[in-house]
């Protein structure tokens, strides 16, 4: 076959690009004999902006482990090296990556990717190769459908439990009526589905219940409706993007409710920077961690994260990522790289983490309570439940 000049040039460029793409390999792969730990992470694509708090936590952990001589592998210290691939924000890509990490890269251990769909997608791969992984940034009632065995979920921020606990907190604050605004994405929709029946059975009137799409650009019409309804509390079941939109437009319209719940976003350091500290102050959000003297290592984790990255960790996702690493460390110290041993330890033992004790039954963490934090004077404080609160809930005053 004779190729014309243009096509030949294009073919050469294409082949060169393909060769480069395939030869590039893992982002951080190195040679040598350290402990190789693999994972995928959304470094590009629409979810990439959500992953830095988890990735930063992994990097911080690696730095600290290597600074103390390496990870304890059944009494032998081995330095840690990451094998990281970009899953391009696609769960199906993560499935291929984890299979490759296990069969081709032959990594020693695995860490979790970001987000619920990714955890659920890779669970069958872990089951197939009997490779244990402690999950972290995943939260859904659907996690309970995942076959127990080789994956565990550290979070207690599960929508049905959030519905119960948030209702209890509202009752305690004597809230009689609410407005529920929900992004239609899965996690917030799940919360809404569990929350509203709880509110009704607790006798809290839902005066406004509305949903909106993830790409919403203006909430004026919805928030005008909320303002006219004169409710006691606003429950904005928002994702990071619309959490900012909500806060900015609630300020513009002067929503004066003392109880302002914003589901996802405020636990991350970007929130007060984008909406302003005074607007962030008083907002309640989902997280079950905060530095507490009772939780060994929690303050040290906070301090070292702030020192390295110049901002607060995400009180939900960073804490979960760190907890998963702590659990893995204990299991590896006890069993070395014996996968069945690691699995048995994670499944049966109780672990001390920066979020207190953690124990799994099936895939779930059954100790950590579902909790909420509130911005108070620029700091996130645990305000619910009272058993582990670092501060009392204070009604929000203005934006």
């Amino acid at each position, binding site marked *: 076959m004779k190729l014309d000049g243009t096509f030949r040039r294009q073919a050469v460029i294409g082949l060169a690009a393909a060769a480069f793409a395939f030869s590039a390999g893992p982002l951080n792969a190195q040679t040598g004999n350290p402990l190789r730990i693999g994972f995928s992470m959304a*470094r*590009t*694509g*629409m979810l*990439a*902006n959500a*992953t*830095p708090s988890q990735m930063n936590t992994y990097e911080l952990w690696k730095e600290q482990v290597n600074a103390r001589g390496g990870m304890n592998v059944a009494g032998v210290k081995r330095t840690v090296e990451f094998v990281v691939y970009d899953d391009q924000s696609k769960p199906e890509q993560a499935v291929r990556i984890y299979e490759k990490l296990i069969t081709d890269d032959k990594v020693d251990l695995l860490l979790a990717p970001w987000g619920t769909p990714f955890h659920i997608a890779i669970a069958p791969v872990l089951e197939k190769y009997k490779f244990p992984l402690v999950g972290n940034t995943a939260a859904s009632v659907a996690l309970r459908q995942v076959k127990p065995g080789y994956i565990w979920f550290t979070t207690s921020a599960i929508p049905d439990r959030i519905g119960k606990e948030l209702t209890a907190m509202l009752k305690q604050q004597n809230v009689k009526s609410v407005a529920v605004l929900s992004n*239609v994405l899965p996690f917030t929709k799940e919360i809404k589905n569990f929350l509203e029946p709880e509110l009704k059975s607790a006798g809290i009137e839902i005066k406004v219940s*509305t*949903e*909106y*799409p993830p*790409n*919403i*650009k*203006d*909430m*004026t*019409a*919805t928030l*005008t*409706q909320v303002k*006219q309804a004169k409710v006691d509390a606003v429950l904005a079941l928002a994702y*990071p*993007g619309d959490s*900012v*939109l909500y806060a*900015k437009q609630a*300020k*513009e*319209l*002067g929503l004066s409710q003392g109880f302002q719940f914003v589901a996802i976003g405020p636990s*991350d350091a*970007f929130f007060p*920077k*984008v*909406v*302003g500290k005074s*607007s962030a102050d008083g907002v309640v959000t989902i997280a079950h961690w905060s530095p507490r003297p009772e939780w060994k290592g929690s303050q040290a984790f906070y301090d070292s994260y702030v020192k390295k990255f110049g901002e607060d960790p995400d009180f939900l996702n960073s804490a979960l990522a760190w907890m998963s690493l702590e659990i893995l460390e204990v299991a590896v110290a006890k069993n070395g790289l014996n996968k069945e041993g690691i699995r048995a330890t994670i499944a049966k033992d109780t672990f001390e983490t920066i979020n207190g004790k953690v124990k799994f039954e099936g895939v779930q963490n059954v100790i950590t309570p579902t909790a909420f934090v509130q911005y108070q004077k620029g700091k996130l404080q645990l305000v619910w439940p009272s058993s582990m609160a670092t501060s009392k809930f204070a009604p929000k005053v203005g934006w």
Partner: protein
Amino acid sequence: MLETMLSGQLLFAALVTGSVYALVALGLNLVYGTMRMLNVAHGDLVMLGAYAAFWGFSLFGLSPLLMAPVIALAGAAVGVAMYRMLFRKMLGKASQSTAGKVESNSLLLFFGLSILIQNSAAFVFTPNIRGYVYLDAVYTLGNVSMTVNRLVALLVAGTLCVSIALFLSRHVLGLAMRAVIERREAASVVGVDVDRVQKLSFGVGFGAAAIAGVLMSMLEQFSPFSGFPFTVAGFVVIILGGLGNITGGLLAALFLGFIETYGVALTSANLRSVLLYGSFVVVLLFFPNGLLSKRLIR
């Protein structure tokens, strides 16, 4: 409900949304109008404008509003440089028969550019969500509350759109641009410097995108991947207004702003996309060449 619909609050929101859409779409439309090139990286230029304002403000405390002209000029310079280095060469080398192919291939070229810009930005700036607090005081006029940065965005975007529209209808260079947009070959025959007009379109288009980015950064959070929705919005606007029809684009942007605000108020926020794209389809059914087709203008 009637009270809400008649309140100035919704009108303000509709005008802010519409004016930002208009500014984004205007740059896209100029490049398409003069060269028939669909710049799918346009939203990414908006994103870069937002980062320029963010870094200027965060690192040096520079006012985004005062920086806007500088950022716009930088955007325009990038546009002109890109035209000179890439597109003029391509168009210049192309014969009459292959010019159309070059123009259609520009879609792929811009698509590649979009991916390159997004991922380079993610690498350089990190994918972290960014934003800052600027002019966030709330000003109340009658029963309408307006955050100052939204008011400023409305005024700046509105003024720029009207100014560019006036430039196109009054200034000799603007008239030359319109001539190229409406009758490219004829304009060339009567002595319009098509190359200069194309270069100017790239400059103004990229500059407008950069300013839209500055305004966007004052209003919302962003990341390296925030540009694409602006590209989509821009395309909807320019198709609705008539490809290459600047005045039609401005009206279409306002139309979308009103649909987005009043439509949601009348129905549900969940129907936003249905309303936007539904009205888009309905309009195109009755006006296939856009709200103000060239036939209607004349």
